């Protein structure tokens, strides 16, 4: 072995502290470090490639008409995706209305009211399993439950499907935030005769609020980018949203539909819509980071 030879060439009892490249161990260390740098840089290429394409191809088409007009038909020129932006906002809003109260209450249960009860263990486990759940199954579930039940695709069904995806995220981040609240703050409140509810609502929740909001922002960002749950719950529509019980457009489904079309106009619009979608997602992501950073 070369390593042993190198060791034998050294004088006994005087450890060599040189960092010489002729030492195979040092050489191997350097080569592996260089390779690791290459691998790490390669791993960051996709993000920059995606952003570059979004800015050059999406940015070229992005304009007032693109974000306010209705989608064009077949060979028609111009058009935009205004209704899809509205649809995405409405459905993410419905999702948040359902998931935030449920998620925060669940988070309080897991983190403050009964942190180590068997009930909480079960809830925590299910929530963790649900975060890794295929998102399309949320769509299948809501299709079976609401679309077949109500007899129509609707913005409401789409919002519920998004809520199914958002609840575990909100709940688990709320739990983490609630757990960070120092025990002595809660003890002080208990010592004054507060009930658990008063402590949870007046002490724990306000203190944990930045962390809770981080989770909400992350869930909203994720939901805005979701498409699989909407595919056959909200479907798509070429018109402005009229009520919550009719098929509704969304940015992600528009991108999916337009990406496969043989018309350059639609493909340009798909890129522009992607840019808008990524901007929305990034804004909420950055918001979550800012709020989260304030806590520390």
């Amino acid at each position, binding site marked *: 072995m070369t390593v042993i030879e190198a060791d034998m060439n050294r004088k006994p009892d005087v450890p060599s502290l040189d960092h010489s490249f002729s030492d195979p161990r040092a050489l191997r260390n350097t080569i592996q470090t260089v390779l690791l740098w290459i691998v790490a840089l390669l791993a960051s290429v996709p993000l920059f490639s995606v952003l570059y394409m979004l800015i050059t191809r999406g940015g070229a088409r992005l304009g007032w008409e693109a974000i306010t007009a209705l989608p064009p038909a077949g060979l028609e020129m111009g058009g935009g995706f205004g209704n899809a932006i509205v649809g995405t906002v409405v459905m993410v809003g419905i999702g948040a209305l359902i998931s935030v109260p449920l998620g925060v*209450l669940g988070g309080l249960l897991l983190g403050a009211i009964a942190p180590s009860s068997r009930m909480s263990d079960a809830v925590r486990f299910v929530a963790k399993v649900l975060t890794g759940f295929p998102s399309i199954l949320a769509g299948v579930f809501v299709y079976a439950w609401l679309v077949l039940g109500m007899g129509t695709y609707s913005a409401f069904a789409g919002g519920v499907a998004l809520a199914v995806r958002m609840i575990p995220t909100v709940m688990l981040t709320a739990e983490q935030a609630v757990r960070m609240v120092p025990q002595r703050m809660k003890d002080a409140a208990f010592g004054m005769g507060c009930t658990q509810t008063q402590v949870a609502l007046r002490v724990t929740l306000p203190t944990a609020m930045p962390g809770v909001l981080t989770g909400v922002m992350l869930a909203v960002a994720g939901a805005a980018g979701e498409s699989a749950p909407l595919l056959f719950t909200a479907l798509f529509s070429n018109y402005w949203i009229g009520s919550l019980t009719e098929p509704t457009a969304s940015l992600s489904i528009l991108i999916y539909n337009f990406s496969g079309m043989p018309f350059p106009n639609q493909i340009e619009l798909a890129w522009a819509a992607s840019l808008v979608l*990524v901007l929305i997602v990034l804004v909420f992501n950055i918001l979550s980071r800012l709020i989260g950073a304030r806590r520390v």
Partner: protein
Amino acid sequence: MSAEGFDLKGDNSISRPPSRGEILADRAFRGIAYASGGLVVAMLAYILWEIGGQAAPAIARDGLGFLTRAVWNPQEHDFGILAEIWGTLYSSILALLIAGFFGVAVAIFLTQDFLDARLARVFRTVIEMLAAIPSVVFGLWGIYVVIPAIRPVANWLHEFLGFIPLFSTPMAGPGMAPAVIVLAIMVLPTVAAISQDAFQLIPYKVKEAAYGMGTTRWEAIQKVMLPTASSGIAASLVLGFGRALGETMALAMLIGNSGQISLSLFSPANTLASLLASQFPEAGALEVEQLMYAALALLGIALVVNIIGTLIMAMSSKQTVS
């Protein structure tokens, strides 16, 4: 607790026992909190019940034969999802091989002092941002960037190395290879994040001990850090696998949606999730039952993988802490 203990007459303290109303409100609120926790458990049960119930007629009609045949013919009511199960597992395993390599490498890069702390934070954000890009955007990017970029390479490989089963077909457009590449990119942040946690949980003195014995940085990483973090890395791979199995839109856009079983990287294929995405919107009532059965199969696979991943993660964090 009795109220007397609180009652110190003549004291200016704001402490006082809760009133009857407050105790009632407390009970009610705790009830609501328990109910919303219970709702999440109930939701999972209801998802299983609802999808299972819709799939029941198809299960009764086709039995297990549905899982072992590779046909999808709505005209003749002839259905089987073996090709989709194969495509799901094949694409996820290949993607996991790539994402596992890159993800663990990135985790080592970020946790073993290769970068100064500020640069490491920037780089970590770059990898985390990958997770924020919506699946459809990756699909669009795959169609217009990945497919044109790898098509010449793929066809060259087919021409000169076509005798290897992996390269046995030419690449026309959508297929396994672009789908796997994009899938790997989407799974990478999951693997990298959880592996990083595993490395960060290792006490610093372990590394110091290794350095103190005269190891180079890489010897310390390979012989000490990697084995110590291995259970966390295993959890990251299993959870990454779970994510890959369920990924839908990018695959529906890139894999070609053709139910065939082939080892070739360049032939079109299909996965369970993209079968659901492409067939569901225009399915007839009978086909919906079959699709529910397919959804149930996907649910079963994903549930098993996710439960294993969550359990490994719980075990590994306990192990490292103790």
